[in-house]
């Protein structure tokens, strides 16, 4: 393939039709004009210009002519937030390893640059070669939460792509979303061409194949392409489905409009993470970003069963990486990036079957070097202190974070956070006794069935932990951090009413009153208003889409940033489009009500979620199925996984959950965590945890 030479044209937000057709041609595609020359004169005038240069270490050197299918991977937020995203890093490598595929990255330009881009007719661009968005075949956007929706519309507009999918031609990119918020893409349905649920590693390659074949055929019918994409497992094409409503306004059902389409679109699950050891060559930022470290995902999925946690529900089952793979990824990753810190990521990293060995092995390797290790785990368990001690051999014992999530035992039973107050206090005692100076505690208010005594219990628990802190040193600190709960799809709390911001404010004030006499105990709260948009978009249906568009037209963007107060704009948009916030967010849904995401299959049975919701209301806890019999949530059947679990079938009758990991080699005789008195394993293996659940 010999691409035409770069057109010396100046790139514009809305390109001429013939240029658009030329760059989208199946073969002999023209190279689109780079935006760099027109962008460069603006950079000295904007904040943090290094974020727009795209010469970070480990970026792909591929150019336009090296590929025939081209992806722009986007995190619809500022570079400093989006750059560390693991999903983008993984897919970037997976796609660029293909000979004929090009992947570049794009982030939302900060408002100062956007203003200049609009004034100077500069389109949304990729970082590596500054190609305009409209030139790519796929605009793949990750939606880790709902507060990037308006930024997505803004990127389309700035990138020369029609906002409505129906207005796009075969010369426009396919707009595809993934990530956790893609499990309910209905509020974005008119604006996206496709949503992909689940793990992206395999499905992006299948999408890539389908697009390549379609381009080679060259007949250019976009509908044909969309129909073929719909045949890929895990790909949902909203235009091919139609929601139907009851007379009372509730949803009746969302149904496919063409024969041969699945009634429920399944999510994708990568069954063996060992086959996908990415990222290997993580991109190294050249300017400050939120997480500057080499990250290794030590396992995917979580089965703790916290009822509020969408991530824990939709990423099941648990799939562990082998300790030796983790070690190799860390060693190779550090060499390739030069990062000074390693993060061992997962939804609950202390739960890896061999976490003690992994921590010790890494600590042995990097002891005495300038490499730091971190384990973002918030488990309330003294074993977490053991691990933190181990990983902090090189550094200072500063702060530990724990997430009891709720203040009272009753409330924790409702949300299935199986932590007794005694556990919390013992953990705090062990932490301060081991020289840690600061404990942060995460809580939520606005949880289902919450009473005022559950709320004040947050403050009281904070005080008890603070009293322990003071016994070990007057300078020790405790921070209580409280956020408002937002119910999410595909969780047992998907039927629950959300608290309006006024109610959250009232509850935060209750905690403030309890805590205020205790100087040195700090209370941090999130702005309750921020949960309003998030909640609406999380559980909204397709009728919310006009409000998203209107809010963006009225100027909403960066909805998750304190710098931008977009709530008033949103309220105006809701008024104008007739969307009733109370009906979507503050009402309890009934068991027989169809939900906007019922046709999207996260693997969890709706009946099981309902049952768990009912058990929650009667304050019954449910064990982690890694260590107890299967309770048939619905995820595992049909997956071909190697079964090997910490749960021993002799102990309790039932099915085992798939977990893959081999035993790690014991490394040395030194007590784990440097103190023989510390627990060497998590508290979970004690079968008593199960009987406790039965008693509740």
């Amino acid at each position, binding site marked *: 393939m010999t691409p035409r030479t770069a057109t010396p044209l100046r790139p514009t937000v809305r390109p001429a039709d013939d240029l658009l057709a030329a760059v989208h041609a199946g073969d002999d595609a023209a190279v689109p004009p780079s935006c*760099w020359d027109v962008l460069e*004169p603006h*950079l*000295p005038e904007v904040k*943090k*210009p*290094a974020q*727009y*240069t*795209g*010469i*970070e*270490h480990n970026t792909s050197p591929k150019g336009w002519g090296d590929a025939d299918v081209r992806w722009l991977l986007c995190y619809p937020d500022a570079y400093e937030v989006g750059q560390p995203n693991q999903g983008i890093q993984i897919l970037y490598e997976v796609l660029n390893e293909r000979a004929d595929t090009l992947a570049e990255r794009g982030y939302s330009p900060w408002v100062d640059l956007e203003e200049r881009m609009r004034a100077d007719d500069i389109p949304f661009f990729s970082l590596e070669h500054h190609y305009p968005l409209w030139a790519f075949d796929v605009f793949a956007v990750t939606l880790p939460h709902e507060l990037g929706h308006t930024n997505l519309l803004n990127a389309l507009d700035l990138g020369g792509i029609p906002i409505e999918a129906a207005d796009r031609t075969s010369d426009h990119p396919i707009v595809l979303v993934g990530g956790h918020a893609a499990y309910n893409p209905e509020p974005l349905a008119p604006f996206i061409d496709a949503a992909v649920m689940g793990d992206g590693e395999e499905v992006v390659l299948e999408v890539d194949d389908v697009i390549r074949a379609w381009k080679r055929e060259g007949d250019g019918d976009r509908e044909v392409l969309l129909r073929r994409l719909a045949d890929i497992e895990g790909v949902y094409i909203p235009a091919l489905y139609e929601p139907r409503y009851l007379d009372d306004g509730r949803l009746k059902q969302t149904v496919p409009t063409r024969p041969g389409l699945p009634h429920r679109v399944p999510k994708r699950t990568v069954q063996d993470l060992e086959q996908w050891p990415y990222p290997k060559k993580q991109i*190294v930022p*050249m*300017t*400050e970003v939120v997480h*500057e470290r080499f990250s290794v995902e030590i396992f995917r999925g979580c089965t703790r069963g916290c009822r509020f946690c969408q991530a824990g529900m939709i990423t099941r089952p648990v799939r562990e990486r082998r300790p030796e793979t983790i070690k190799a990824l860390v060693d190779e990753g*550090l*060499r*390739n*990036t*030069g*990062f*000074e810190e390693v993060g061992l990521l997962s939804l609950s990293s202390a739960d890896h079957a061999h976490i003690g060995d992994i921590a010790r092995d890494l600590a042995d390797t990097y002891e005495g070097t*300038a490499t730091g290790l971190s384990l973002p785990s918030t488990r309330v368990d003294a074993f977490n202190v053991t691990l933190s001690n181990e990983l902090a051999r090189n*550094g*200072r014992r500063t702060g530990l974070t724990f997430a009891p999530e709720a203040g009272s035992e009753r409330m924790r039973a409702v949300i299935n956070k199986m932590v007794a107050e005694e556990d919390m206090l013992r953990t705090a005692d062990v932490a301060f006794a081991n020289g840690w100076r600061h404990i942060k505690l995460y809580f939520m208010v606005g949880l289902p069935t919450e009473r005022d005594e559950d709320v004040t219990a947050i403050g009281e628990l904070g005080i008890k932990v603070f009293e322990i802190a003071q016994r070990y040193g007057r300078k020790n600190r405790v921070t209580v951090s409280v956020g408002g709960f937002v119910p999410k799809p595909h969780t047992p709390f998907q039927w629950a009413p959300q608290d309006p911001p006024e109610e959250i404010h009232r509850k935060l004030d209750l905690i403030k009153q309890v805590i205020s006499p205790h100087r040195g105990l700090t209370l941090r709260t999130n702005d309750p208003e921020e949960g309003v948009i998030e909640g609406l978009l999380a559980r909204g249906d397709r009728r919310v889409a006009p409000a998203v568009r209107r809010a963006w037209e009225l100027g909403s963007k960066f909805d998750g940033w304190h710098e931008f107060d977009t709530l008033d704009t949103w309220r105006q948009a809701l008024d104008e489009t007739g969307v009733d916030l109370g009906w979507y967010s503050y009402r309890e849904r009934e068991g027989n009500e169809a939900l906007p995401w019922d046709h999207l299959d996260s693997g969890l049975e709706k009946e099981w979620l309902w049952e768990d919701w009912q058990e929650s209301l009667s304050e019954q806890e449910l064990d982690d199925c890694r260590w107890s019999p299967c309770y048939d949530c619905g995820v595992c059947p049909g997956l071909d996984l190697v079964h090997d679990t910490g749960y021993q079938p002799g102990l309790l009758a039932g099915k085992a959950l798939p977990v893959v990991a081999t035993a790690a080699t014991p490394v040395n005789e030194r007590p784990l965590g440097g103190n023989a008195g510390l627990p060497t394993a998590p508290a979970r293996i004690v079968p008593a945890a199960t009987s406790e659940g039965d008693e509740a």
Partner: protein
Amino acid sequence: MQRIRVRYTKEGRVRFVSARDLTSVWERALRRADLPIAYSEGFHPHAKVSFPDALPVGYASTGEYAELTFAAPVDPGPALQALSATLPPGMDILVYFEVPDGAPKLAKMLEATMWECVLPAPDEAGDAAPAQPLADRINDLCAEIVEATELPVVRRRPKGDKSIDVRPWLADLRASVRPDEAGRPTTILRAIFTNDGPSVRPTELYEVLTTYADGDLTQPRLYRRVSQGRVEADGLTEALSGEHEPLAPNRLVGAA
């Protein structure tokens, strides 16, 4: 501990990396090159890489300097070659100098700085004058400036503007014509400021020059720090290499 001073460039896209981010860019490159850089003591160890002064974001440079301290001896040639290869594109090590014990501080060796203002090539902007006449015109203004006893520059401060006289620190300045990246004759103004006073930016000098031209002067498209060292006749002696950097290089180019 082995100490090595280097002169490096900051050209192209990397010039948008701020002085604040420079330390981690170098630290990570040193780690990738697997060089035994020394670390500071304490709970948050930092690689021992020091930079004598900060370059404003967006300025190009062929005259940046750093001092590296190694915990174990390295063979400077191959080590710095490996380091230069893994530094961002546009950031290249040009010269190095192993520091003997008792050597003066790096900042002391950088007595003066040569800056340049690169004007747009004549066909780049509609209002740009052809290169040689523009250089001649600027040189006439330079002659006036050298004669001036005072060159007031206004600095905007939150607490009110402040005027400072930069004349005592201006050693010399001259315009010349040089081909740009595309080979087009381009006017360049070079100026040398001594580093013993307040740091003067070339933008400030150009503002003064524009005042002397009654506001009618093409604005530069790029500012560059050329090199640093000791002032000498018609130029500067570069601190690490001892090479002469002339104020008006390639004076004849474009004059034909």
